[in-house]
Every structure is written in C-alpha cells, then in structure tokens.
C-alpha cells in the first residue's frame, strides 16, 4: 500500500467541483442558504470560469416567458425531444425553475441578454421547439453567463482552488457517505485531500473520446469515471449527442471538431457531399433543417458511402445566400473559419458530425442528492433531465437550474451535519496509487492511445451502431486500456505536467467509453441520439426503459429500468385542449 502521508490535508464545509454553470450557481446559492460562517470551497481543473462547456454556449438558454409559451409547453417539448425517456419530475423542475433562474441571471448576476425593440427579452427557436423560447446574447451566450458568474464568485469570500484536478471521490469506511475529494494540485503536482460535509460534483460531461468533439480541452469525463469507481449508478450512458456540423480541418489541429453553429443550416445553409451535391433530402424531408440527430446520421451515412469531401467529411455551403449577407449575419463564424484558413461566406467548408453533449449521468433525485450521503451532482454530470436527447438550449438551463438547487439543498442539509467524516484510508491510498501508476513506468506516447480510442469510439460506438460494432469497440477499448496501464510518464517534474494529466484524462475516457458501449448494447432499440442499425425501431413509448450502469468490483453491469410516467403518459399532453401544435411561425 502506498503511503498517504505525503498528501496535504485540508478541510472545508461545502466543496464544489467545477466552475461551469452548475458549479458557480452551487457556490453562490450555498453562500446564500448556509449558516453564516460556513466555509465554501470551489475547486476546478482549470481557471475559474475559463474552463468547461458553459462558457462555450452559443445558441442560448431555454425558458418559457409567456407570449403564449408556458412551462407546460417547454416541458412537453423536453419530453418529446427526449423521446419519453426523461425523468419527468426532473424535466418539470428544469422548465419551471428556468423561469426563476433567468431572472436571477439578469437581475442578480448581471447578465444582459438580447432585447426586442420594445425592451423585452428576445427569444428564438431551436430545432425541436414549439415556441420562440431561447434567450441569448448574440451567439456568445455562454461567455456572458460565465463571465458574470465568475465575477460574482471571485468577489465573494469563497475559497478558490484553481488548477486542482479531482481524481477520486473518497467515501467513509462504511461506504455510506462521502468524506471528501482527492485532488492533484496541478501547479505543483502534489496530492491534496479535502474533507467536506457536503460535496457537489459539477464537472460536466464532455464526450471527448470521439474523434470529433466540441467540448473544451479540460473535459474528459472525470466526474462520471469517479462516480463509477465509488459505485454510484449511472443512467442513459448510451446517449451521446452529436452536433451535425463540426469543423473539419485535419487531425493535427485543435480547430477540428469545433461547432459551426446550428443557425447556418437554419438560415438556408446547404450540405454537399464530395461530389458537391446536396444529399440531406435523401434522408429526411426537412433536408438540412431536420433535427441534429437526423442530420448527423445523414452526414455519417453519406461519409460511409465514400461520398465524402477531401478530409473525409462533407461540405457546408453558404455562398448562395450572398457572401456579404453571410459575413454580416454570421460574423463570428466567418471570422473563426477565416482564422483557420477557410472562407465560410463564399467557399466550401468541410464539416463532420461531432460529439457534443452527454445525456447520461449519475442517478440523482430532483434535489440533486445521490445514493452517497453528502454527495450532490448537478449539470451535465447528472442524468435524467433530457432522456435520450437534449434540446438545444436545455443544457445550460439544466446546469444553472440544478447547480442552484444543489447549493440551496447543501446549505440546508449541512445544518444537520455536525462533523466532518473520516475517509476510508485504503480507498484514498488506492486512488493515489492509481494516479501514480504511470510515474513508475517508462515513458510512452499517450497521445497515440488517445487517437486510437477516438477512432475506436467513432467507428464502433458512434453515430450509427450495431451489436457487432459495439462488441468490437469494447475489445478495442480493453486493449487500449491495458496498453495505457503500461504506458509511463516521465516523473522528474510533476509541476504543471500536462502529459501526466493527458494520461489521467485517458484513464477517465477509457472507463466511461466502456460504459457507453455496454449501455449501447443493452438498449436494443433506437431512441433519440442512440441509433442501432440492427434495431432501427424505437420500441413502444409505453414500454420505455432507461439503462442503469454500475460498477461492481472490476465489472460494469448494465440493467434496464422502466420509465415512470409521473406527469404525462405517452400519447397524452398536459397542454390545455385546443392549444396549437406549435407557436413558431416558421414551422406553421
């Protein structure tokens, strides 16, 4: 057993992991709800507010604010979008509380969202919505939300542990509650164990185990990997959302995979295959304007037929809308493409479906509590609210709503928790040992393994899936994982050692990849983001089930659980009779 004596120990009352929408709202709300004098600590893998996906939100924030739209309608869209898999109580709370949260964002946090000429909030419609519901700040909504939250957090007496990477949730000896979290202080390379009465995990999803992906570089599924190791149940793990139009610029550049916004297709952008012919109408009547999952599948299918562009994707073409017009309307996107050498306004830009959002996550209740006492999970790390597919605009609503909820609940809950809990020292030691594994091996190429994993997931557990493919994928993952275990990292200087963290990132990604593939095998139908070529049928909505994965010993088991229709049953609606199907003018 490794000595845990060299670990620095630190105590706090409330510990929050991550500074996305979930983490920062949790910190602010905990500060408001906890008794005066409660110590609150926020720890993050990068810099406060600078890392994570909330910052990258472009489109906006879904919230029903009247004008015909109602919480009920938002809820029904969420359930329909999630193909009846969402936990209905969670979805309801999401829609209901979004209304409060958007007022809080504007009035207390200081966000400024775009206005109509009359001074009211401007709202637009993402695909799959039946009302103009998405509040936004241009196409940089996330920057506005996170920068404002960051200022609030920085200006309050909240302890900040920046560039502290959580590597293990450490339970008590009896395993019933959480004692604290083990970190690597990335700047020094030292281990630090922080005890807390309540811990909130908001480390976000971020399916970066795919060859093409949108999330930020710090996102590698650490949270779900940690939850898995501590034995928590994870649901909907097969549900990976692909965005249809990620930039394709070659393997060597980080630009590849980044999102070209949805609005391009909405405005009339055309997708062309390698022969520069439109193809989406071969797959769906709405052509390029179909929902994300359908367009992603269309593109993927076209690529598989070898009708692909130079680098193996397809083209997006905007020029027919008038280059100047495009330049004006999509200034940011045109500029961004230009910086990487492409002409979006007049030329062809290669695109490819890109892994974007992770619907699966830790099983929580509507108060963000988990099966482990003292551990709360919110944001993209928590499963349930979106079911099999997340509506554009529901992601940031989800993280901000439930982050706030977690803060409120923790502030109240810790009043009844008098003492800090002691950790199971064996688990602590095991986690340190796990992290140190590569340091005693001869150095190898972690990046090559990451490419291999990304290829494996893309080919075998990607946009279109089959049992044979996923089984092959599982084999590849297992091989890569055992190779990783033999791949070392030079250990002479652990301070800000990115290569060590690349290794740890890979460890998390391998663990979660395995679960995605297993959950994918367990779902023998096609729903939302999950498409099985060998089971193209969706199954009846009445008999909907969700998958639950759990790690026992060294084995991951996946079971199915029936969806409880607590608010509305398939085929029914909670909208009043006579309500129009959609309020969006364009769709009518």
């Amino acid at each position, binding site marked *: 057993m490794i000595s845990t004596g060299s670990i620095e120990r630190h105590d706090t009352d409330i510990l929050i992991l991550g500074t996305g929408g979930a983490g920062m709202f949790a910190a602010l709300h905990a500060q408001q709800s906890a008794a005066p004098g409660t110590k609150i600590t926020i720890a993050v893998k*990068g*810099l*406060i507010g*600078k*890392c994570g996906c909330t*910052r*990258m939100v472009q489109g906006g924030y879904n919230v029903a604010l009247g004008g015909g739209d109602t919480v009920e309608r938002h809820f029904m869209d969420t359930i329909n979008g999630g193909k009846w898999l969402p936990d209905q109580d969670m979805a309801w709370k999401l829609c209901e509380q979004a209304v409060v*949260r*958007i*007022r*809080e964002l*504007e*009035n*207390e946090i*200081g966000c*400024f969202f*775009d*206005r*109509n*000429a*009359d*001074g*009211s*909030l401007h709202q637009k419609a993402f695909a799959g919505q039946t009302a103009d519901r998405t509040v936004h*700040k*241009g196409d*940089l909504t996330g*920057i506005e939300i996170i*920068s*404002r939250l*960051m*200022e*609030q957090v*920085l*200006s309050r007496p909240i302890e900040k542990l*920046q560039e502290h990477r959580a590597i293990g949730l450490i339970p008590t000896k009896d395993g019933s509650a959480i004692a604290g979290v083990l970190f690597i202080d990335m*700047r020094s390379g030292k281990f630090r164990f922080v005890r807390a009465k309540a811990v909130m995990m908001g480390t976000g999803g971020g399916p970066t185990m795919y060859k093409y992906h949108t999330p*930020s*570089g710090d996102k590698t599924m650490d949270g779900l990997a940690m939850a898995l190791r501590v034995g928590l149940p994870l649901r909907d793990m097969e549900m990976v959302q692909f965005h249809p139009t990620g930039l394709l610029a*070659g393997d*060597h*550049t*980080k*630009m590849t995979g*980044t999102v070209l916004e949805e609005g391009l297709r909405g405005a009339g952008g055309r997708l062309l295959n390698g022969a520069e012919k439109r193809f989406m109408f071969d797959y769906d009547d709405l052509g390029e304007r179909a929902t994300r999952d359908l367009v992603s599948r269309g593109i993927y299918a076209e690529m598989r037929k070898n009708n692909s562009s130079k680098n193996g994707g397809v083209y997006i073409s905007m020029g027919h809308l008038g280059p100047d017009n495009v330049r004006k309307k999509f200034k940011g996107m045109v500029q*961004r493409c230009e*910086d990487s*050498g*492409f002409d979006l306004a007049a030329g062809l830009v290669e695109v490819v479906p890109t892994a974007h959002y992770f619907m699966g996550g830790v099983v929580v209740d509507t108060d963000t509590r988990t099966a482990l006492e003292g551990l709360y999970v919110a944001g993209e790390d928590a499963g349930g609210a979106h079911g099999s597919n997340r509506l554009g605009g529901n992601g940031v609503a989800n993280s901000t709503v439930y982050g706030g909820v977690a803060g409120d609940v923790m502030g109240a809950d810790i009043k009844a928790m008098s003492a800090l809990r002691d950790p199971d020292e064996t688990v602590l030691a095991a986690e340190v040992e796990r992290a140190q594994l590569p340091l005693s091996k001869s*150095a190898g190429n972690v*990046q090559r393994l990451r490419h291999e994993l990304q290829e494996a997931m893309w080919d075998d557990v990607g946009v279109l899936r089959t049992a044979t493919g996923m089984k092959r994928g599982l084999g590849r993952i297992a091989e890569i994982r055992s190779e990783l275990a033999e791949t070392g*990292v*030079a250990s*002479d*200087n652990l*301070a*800000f*050692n*990115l*290569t060590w963290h690349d290794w740890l990132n890979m460890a998390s990604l391998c663990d979660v990849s395995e679960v995605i593939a297993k959950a994918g095998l367990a779902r023998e139908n096609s729903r939302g983001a999950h498409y099985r070529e060998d089971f193209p049928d969706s199954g009846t909505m009445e008999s909907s089930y969700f998958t639950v994965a759990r790690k026992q010993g060294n084995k991951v088991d996946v079971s199915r659980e029936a969806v409880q229709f607590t608010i509305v049953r398939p085929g029914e609606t909670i909208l009043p009779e006579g309500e129009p199907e959609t309020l969006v003018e364009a769709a009518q």
Partner: protein
Amino acid sequence: MSSDPDELEVSVWRGDNTSGQFEDFRVPAQENQTILDVVSWIQQHRDPTLSYRYACRVGMCGSCAMMVNGVPRWTCRTHVKVALKDNRVSIGPLRNLPVIKDLATDMDPFFDKWVTAEGMHHPSKTRDDAIEQIDPEDGARLEANKGIECINCSVCYAACDTVAGNDDYLGPAALQRAWTLYNDAKDAGKQTILEAVSGTGGCHNCHSQGSCSHYCPNDLNPMAAIAGLKRATALSFFKGRK
C-alpha cells in the same frame, strides 16, 4: 539557417518566475495550424514537460494567450501564417503576469484587479422581480454593449506599458468592465464604481497608449472605455466641489 518549408523553427520559453530561457524546436508545418497547435505538438511529440494552458480552442475562454514574436495574442485563433517571420516564431508566456511554468501564467493579479475595479454587477433587483425592459438602442446601452464581449484573455493587460510600470494600475480590461457596468441601467453601484476607478491604480493612470485596443483579439476598445471613465470621474469631481 534552414529554410525548409516543411518545418517551422520555433523557440519556446522554458522556465518559471525566477529564471528561464528560450529553447528551439522544429515542428512540422501544416496547412491549417494555429500557434496553439504548434505548442501542443511540441508537448505531445518532443517535450512532455512543456506547460501551457488552453480550454475552448475557439477564442471564447481567453486562457491560451501568449507572447508570439513579442506581441500578445490568443494562440488558438492565431494561424501560424499570421505570426511567422522568416519561417520562425518565438512563443513566450504572457507579459505582465507572474509565470507559473513555461507558457502558463498566474492570472490571479488580473482577476484581483477586475474585482478591485468593482467589475461585478451591483444588483438593483432580485430574482423575484420582473426582468427590466431595456431599449436596445438606448445610448447608454449601446455604450455598455461595446465592451461586453470581453473574454478576459489578458491580451490587453499584457500589451500595456502602464501595467508594466505601475503595479497598482488596474489595467484596460478591468477598467473597461467598470465602464460597461457604469453604463448598465441595471447596475446600482455607479458611485462605487467611480470611487473604485479613482484611486492610485485607477483610470487616470492610463496614458492612452492604445496598445490595449490595438491587440484586443475581439476588436474591443478599452482605451475608449477608459476615456469614458475619465470623463465620468472628471464630471463627478466638479460636481463634488462646486
């Protein structure tokens, strides 16, 4: 010196806050390649201990800024072609901030000053109130909008010689944020803001060098925002003593 177009000659600063030196690397040239890609390539293929920071890789998070051939830039959105001189490029840590290691700086001073400048919203309402109706074409709103897309990347802070010479100087980004808030109809802290930017490190130290506006990757104009603060503080100075 080699003029092999297939390879770039890259010098990268290695070291910490106390000492360091430039180290040379050869990096394969690619068609679509950013400075950040070059740095990553070195870490992944040549020197696994090279430290740097990035997150979003699309110019949204403001964590990847470095000195590229002596000028501050966001590296994830800087195409190699733009920066290259004679097939060479030097990459160093952002100026005016303590270096943690190699290309990663400690941005805390930058954010401490952001807070000192009262760069956070001072609420006039609560979550129980309706959202304020604000005319998007209103003059003050238009002024506030000009600075709102700041990604706090610190490029302007690194470009400014006043920051270099005056430890207390709050710097362009923090002051621009203060000006934005000052013009925000919802902000209840106008007086607090004016006081915060009138102290020893305040807006009056700015010499209108304009490097901030020259290098801001988002084409923002902190120089103009600071001028706005000078005007507002001057006005309130006269009002205070008439």
